């Protein structure tokens, strides 16, 4: 592993992190992880065929198929990105130990933080590239299908004598369910969630003894994290239902320790045609960065003087 001579960041933290990140990315890409993109392509195309019979006038034509494409695609993106971020991160440290690469790197003047940050960025780059590919594919399929739906609706609406205003109104409603900024924001929310999971898996892998342990614990935290909001509500409204002190403290512990993954479930609302204001996206990004930074720093704290 060496930095190209023309790299201006040579010898800097950023330069080292960049080199380790690209190496981690290449290492993961060689594990043929991108093959799943073919499965995604099949899913995105297959979701086009769930066009069930309609019961209404022009306003309902194709309504279901657009939802179907979005929910299949975003669902697959969520699953792939979470699985990829957990498994890829869980693999990295044990694999470096097994290949003895870790000893070579740490024997050089590479700060351990740079090593961890580089590995994490490599995984995030992999997730980002995968999501970007899936996003492009989903957008293209959705764009084509939306155009087909609008054409079908307009033909039916004109046949039924709808006015130009009514046709324009129908068109606007359908476009709200097509590819738009809210959908791209939802994909970004998927990336944020995957980033949190990757940094959390990194933290676990710094004290874990096996890949399997890291993977299982990460998935458990992922699912329990979806109940965090319930625990927080329970804690914040404690004392209203005569619950015990133990339940109160248990709820507080869950709220403080686990991330709130419900926040990232905004993708459901976007699939249903809801707008996603930029301010909300910014707030969500802030909490995502907060989690990712904290878990990375905590990983470094554990990893800093770990003996191998």
């Amino acid at each position, binding site marked *: 592993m060496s930095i190209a001579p023309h790299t201006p960041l040579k010898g800097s933290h950023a330069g080292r992190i960049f080199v380790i990140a690209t190496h981690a990315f290449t290492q993961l890409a060689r594990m043929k992880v991108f093959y799943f993109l073919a499965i995604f392509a099949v899913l995105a195309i297959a979701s086009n065929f769930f066009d069930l019979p309609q019961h209404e006038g022009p306003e309902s034509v194709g309504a279901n198929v657009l939802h*179907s494409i979005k929910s299949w695609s*975003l669902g697959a993106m*969520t699953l792939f990105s979470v699985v990829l971020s957990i498994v890829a991160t869980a693999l990295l440290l044990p694999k470096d130990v097994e290949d003895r690469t870790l000893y070579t790197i740490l024997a050089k003047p590479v700060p351990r933080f740079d090593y961890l940050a580089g590995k994490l960025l490599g995984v995030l780059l992999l997730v980002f590239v995968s999501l970007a590919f899936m996003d492009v594919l989903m957008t293209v399929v959705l764009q084509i299908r939306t155009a087909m739906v609008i054409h079908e609706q307009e033909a039916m609406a004109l046949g039924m004598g709808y006015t130009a205003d009514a046709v324009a109104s129908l068109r606007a409603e359908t476009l709200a369910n097509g590819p738009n900024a809210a959908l791209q924001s939802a994909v970004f929310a998927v990336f944020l969630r995957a980033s949190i999971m990757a940094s959390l898996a990194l933290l676990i892998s710094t004290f874990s003894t096996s890949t399997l342990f890291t993977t299982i614990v990460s998935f458990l935290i992922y699912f329990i994290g979806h109940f965090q909001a*319930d625990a927080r509500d329970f804690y914040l409204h404690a004392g209203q239902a005569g619950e015990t002190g133990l339940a109160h403290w248990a709820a507080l512990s869950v709220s*403080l320790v686990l991330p709130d993954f419900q926040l990232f*479930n905004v993708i459901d609302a976007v699939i249903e045609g*809801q707008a996603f*204001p930029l301010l909300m996206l910014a707030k969500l990004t802030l909490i995502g960065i907060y989690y990712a930074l904290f878990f990375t720093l905590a990983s470094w704290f554990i990893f800093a003087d770990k003996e191998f």
Partner: protein
Amino acid sequence: MKLWLKSAILAVTLLAFGAARLAYEATLTRDLQAAGLVAPRLQIGTRDKIGQTSSTVALGGLRTLVATFLNLRAYTAFSEQRWEDIAETFNTIVDLAPHTRYYWETGSWHLAYNAASYYINDASLPPLRRREAWRLYVLRGRAFLERGIRNNPNDWSLLANLGTLLSDPNKFPAFRDNNASFAAAAEAYRQAAATGKALDYVGRARLYSLARVAGRERESLALARSLFDASRRNHTPTLLMLLLVLEAHENPALDVARRAVELFDTPQKAYDALSSHWQRTRERFPVFGVSAGLDALEKTLSIPKENSILSRALPPPPTPDDWFHK
């Protein structure tokens, strides 16, 4: 640094980090809920119905994906005419995706139209049970749609669908008080139009329902006049006819034949329109002054008494008694 000390520092930092974000997350959750971006929590009943695996998937942020699968399952139930399964599946679907119009409309359509119609022809049941099953499913379809409207109060299409159901000649006999159901249909159409997103037929449909509410003729006439003046597209035969009969109700001395010719251009067209309206007994539109107008126009057009529309038998109004005799 010793491991126990390190672990203790990490634990304390984790708690401090958690405490620092707690209020922010609670506020963000409220903001996202207010913006309609985070759905209400999944009910325990729904978790049970969709099973452990789907529940896990739904909790993992893929509620709409589970709803999509369930919609496919509901379609299978529809093709096999398992109406109770359809009702249950759609209840679960709308818990998972409460803001998707399509699911509310499709669920209501299956219940009020498909399931209800199925029982009209179900030869395996005695007439009384078929009638009750038909009525029950129409009411369930209505209740489902009303629940959808409570969840999506600004959705014009759900409101318009409710108006259509309540004023449908094949459905309104299921409601005990037709005056109340026509009034509810008119109100649903009014609310749909008030969203500002509704198609223009909604305004006319509101009049068609309101005109059938006994005691609200004056209000109906004002609406008919405003629609008539608003656009030539509103000059549909039904709207022109309702304008005429409502004017006749307001002014019993009105020369209906003359006014009909004004509205429909020629005596023949006026006669055809009045004849058609006279025979539309299924819809239960008001007929104030129509027989007098027909009588006068028959004289103008020299139509012999034996050919008079007034001497022909009227089609009987729809009643479930007829449907369930067979």
